[in-house]
């Protein structure tokens, strides 16, 4: 077995072989600039770009004309939030988002605050889902924009986008959805959803990094102020020469997702459930986030009384993410896990497993065996575990902060 075993598909995915094959010609013989109108090189590239736009549109149930190519989800989110806030600022200056959003949304909202907008960051319920009553109560006459992610990147929970969309549309509020983690995992139907703006990227759905798209609804029409000015590409919303090969890759990746997601997700759910049932012989293991309103790919688990970074080190034969930001320079535990009410200790000792297209049963069995062995070893070494075994209540202890 080749180690490390990749169980971090929510971070990124490998490019599918079929995607790569589709992309290659556009780096060599079909290298034309899709904006070149005067010769066949340009026409061919333009045709490829428009075909890819249709492939993306088919997966998400919109019109191809409603998609703008970008460099990825972060850019799409920036364009959606800043673009809409700037365009509609005379209508109001209040924006609503959620505490468990990706940093691309939270940091963009912070920037809007610096520009004079007022942003409400809503709490979530302990299962990670937005409380719709609390959401409705937060809507104000001057609210112009709401941003909620479809699928959470850390805990995989699926928000009720349909219900949130109804509440926004009834009040004429622009609604943006970050779907970076959703494509190929949940059925997205923009025909039915009352969503005005939706951000996508390719690399979490077996496409290449560096390309994404923003859905901008035409009926009812949503307006944006562009962030990037230049040659007026993408109807003026996003200038810059289109990366044909990347776009072709995204289109192909989304076409494959459309064709295969139903069967693929069942297989992935079975693997995820095998992983979750593997933990049943272990004590003090907690699931983070709702199990039912959740994509089948994600399992986020806290192993109490062991610290996350040492756990990651112990399980270096599997590639996973930790909820402990100890790995970055700060000592802050995951803000998503804190938002669902997890203690700092449990947040520190969490691992996000994300299963994908190339995960096998043998991979999962290997991971379960490794976890059992290493968690036991670290607990033998843990003073917290020792105290708990002795019946000490850790919460009753006055810990010295440092």
């Amino acid at each position, binding site marked *: 077995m080749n180690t490390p075993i990749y169980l971090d598909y929510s971070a990124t995915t490998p490019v599918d072989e079929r995607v790569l094959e589709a992309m290659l010609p556009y780096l060599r013989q079909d290298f034309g600039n899709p904006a070149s109108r005067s010769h066949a090189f340009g026409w061919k590239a333009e045709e490829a770009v428009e075909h890819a736009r249709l492939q993306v549109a088919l997966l998400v149930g919109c019109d191809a004309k409603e998609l703008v190519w970008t460099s990825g989800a972060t850019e799409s989110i920036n364009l959606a939030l800043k673009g809409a806030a700037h365009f509609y600022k005379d209508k109001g200056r209040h924006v609503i988002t959620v505490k468990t959003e990706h940093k691309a949304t939270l940091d963009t909202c912070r920037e809007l605050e610096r520009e004079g907008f007022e942003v409400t960051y809503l709490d979530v319920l302990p299962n990670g889902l937005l409380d719709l009553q609390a959401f409705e109560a937060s809507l104000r006459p001057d609210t112009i924009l709401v941003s909620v992610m479809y699928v959470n990147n850390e805990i995989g929970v699926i928000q009720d986008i349909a219900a949130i969309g109804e509440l926004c549309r009834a009040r004429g509020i622009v609604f943006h959805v970050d779907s970076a983690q959703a494509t190929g995992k949940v059925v997205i139907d923009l025909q039915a959803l009352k969503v005005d703006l939706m951000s996508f990227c390719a690399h979490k759905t077996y496409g290449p990094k560096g390309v994404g798209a923003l859905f901008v609804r035409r009926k009812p029409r949503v307006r944006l102020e562009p962030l990037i000015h230049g040659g007026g590409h993408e109807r003026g919303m996003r200038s810059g020469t289109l990366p044909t090969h990347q776009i072709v890759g995204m289109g192909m990746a989304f076409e494959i997702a459309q064709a295969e997601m139903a069967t693929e997700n069942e297989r992935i759910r079975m693997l995820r459930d095998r992983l979750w049932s593997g933990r049943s012989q272990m004590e003090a293991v907690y699931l983070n986030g709702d199990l039912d309103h959740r994509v089948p790919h994600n399992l986020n688990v806290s192993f109490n*009384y*062991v*610290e*996350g*970074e*040492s756990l990651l*080190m112990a399980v270096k034969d599997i590639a996973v993410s930790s909820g*402990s930001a*100890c*790995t970055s*320079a700060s*000592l802050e*535990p995951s803000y998503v896990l804190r938002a669902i009410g997890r*203690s*700092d*200790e449990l947040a*520190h000792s969490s691992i996000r497993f994300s299963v994908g297209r190339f995960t096998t049963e043998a991979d999962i069995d290997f991971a379960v065996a490794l976890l059992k062995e290493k968690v036991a070893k670290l607990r*033998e*070494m*843990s*003073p*917290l*575990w*020792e105290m708990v075994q002795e019946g000490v209540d*850790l919460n009753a202890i006055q*810990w*010295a*902060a*440092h």
Partner: protein
Amino acid sequence: MAYSEKVIDHYENPRNVGALDKNDPSVGTGMVGAPACGDVMKLQIKVNDQGIIEDARFKTYGCGSAIASSSLVTEWVKGKSLDEAMTIKNSQIASELSLPPVKIHCSILAEDAIKAAIEDYRKKHVDLVD
């Protein structure tokens, strides 16, 4: 994050993991850190009649560098007098393990753990003298 070879060695083969009887008068126990900060170290020393640390044990909840720092100091304190052990500085630990700047707090914690264990031992013995 890339760890130094020494950190990995101590992490994979930690020295002196375990516990001594904390009620034994010849044992000093130091526990420092907080679960919320991501590290808790428990260091125990056993001191003989000559005032020499003859054994040490640790248990650590923390990152690889925290485990390595505590494993290392259990090796270092053995055979030292209490006064000698008090002179161990976090900078020596950090340099021995080539800790990066973000992990310096692990070495500080290990130094604090030694001091806390010695203080606990001395407290027990002040009480005995009284």
